């Protein structure tokens, strides 16, 4: 992975996630699951899927992507997140179905919402900068 091509705020999130995956085993991800996983029905599967998506996907990272990459960042955020298979090991079918649906929907929601906000903020900042530059140019012209 070429970290030098990635904005620092995004990179920090990626590095921390990769390290926890590698060194902390799946436990850190599972810490978010400290709810009632003794019940393994669809309702619990959905709740755990959403909780896992919130744990896996950093809203701040996707805000930064949207802010820095604008529309491209927003389009990147439309892609689906990538969950760990460990969470489905030993779980019944209804749990798996609900978990995957809710994980996907929640992950997409977090990413698109934050990337869109970042995109709009980035665009707004650009507009202000252009306005200042145009105003400065106008003042220079009028001085002549």
């Amino acid at each position, binding site marked *: 992975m070429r970290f030098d091509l990635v904005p620092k705020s995004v990179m920090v999130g990626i590095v921390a996630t990769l390290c926890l995956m590698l060194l902390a*085993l799946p436990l850190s991800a599972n810490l978010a699951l400290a709810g009632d996983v003794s019940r393994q029905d669809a309702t619990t599967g959905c709740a755990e899927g959403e909780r896992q998506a919130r744990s896996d996907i950093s809203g701040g990272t996707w805000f930064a992507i949207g802010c820095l990459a604008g529309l491209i960042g927003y389009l990147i955020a439309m892609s689906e997140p990538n969950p760990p298979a460990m969470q489905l090991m030993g779980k019944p079918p209804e749990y798996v179905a609900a978990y*995957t649906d809710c994980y996907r929907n929640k992950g997409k929601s977090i990413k698109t919402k934050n990337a869109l906000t970042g995109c709009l903020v980035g665009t707004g900042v650009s507009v202000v900068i252009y306005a200042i530059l145009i105003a400065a140019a106008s003042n220079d012209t009028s001085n002549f």
Partner: protein
Amino acid sequence: MTVAFAVTIQGRESVLPHHNLSMDEFTTLYGHFRRTFTAASLVDTTEGDFYYLGPQKMFIEVTYPLRQIMLIEGKVTTIFYPLERTAFRLESENPAILPLIPGLMAAIRPDFGLGDLGFTLYSQEMRGDTVVSSWSHPKARSKIGDYKIAEVKDRLAYTLYVSPDSSNRNRTNFSNYLALGGVSFPTRISSAAQSTAGKAFELVTLSGLKMNLEIPPAVANFQIPADVTVTKRKW
């Protein structure tokens, strides 16, 4: 097998001895696993057999608390329930994270896999018979802090991570090593994590490990039976 592994400590070259080489020494790995996850008052146990079939490919047969077959091939995860006669085919945009394997692989690699993540070894110190090294990413050290790796007699003993604000703490212990060919695998991996969400514990025990085992036809040629309806989903 002991090898010398060169690393850079804050710009200076150093040498780490390490008994293991790499996962190149084996093509497949079989074992029985038992995983117990504990958080608050709940205990969640899963048990079964796994076949690591190479990078991004793994076959898992869960026998407790239910019967489940899971085949992970890169971006496709197939889950089959033989008793319920139902199955899922899950597709993701990136390869799925293999269960059990990342921690196991970290334990047998000379740099614990941190080099691939762009990490640098910052310091090393001896504490009795334990070598403790601190690793971090040069561009993110102030944000994520250091990962401490402890080795005893050239074997990974534990990893410790404490976030800079101390809100997250995770320690994983690796023990009961089993030598297979030129590679030593930890067969008891226990983790304790603590964050604002609470505390959790995980114990993974492995037994019957076999390396480069001839894969049974039922595993190598696994396919979901034709009479089973497969539900397709995208992550």
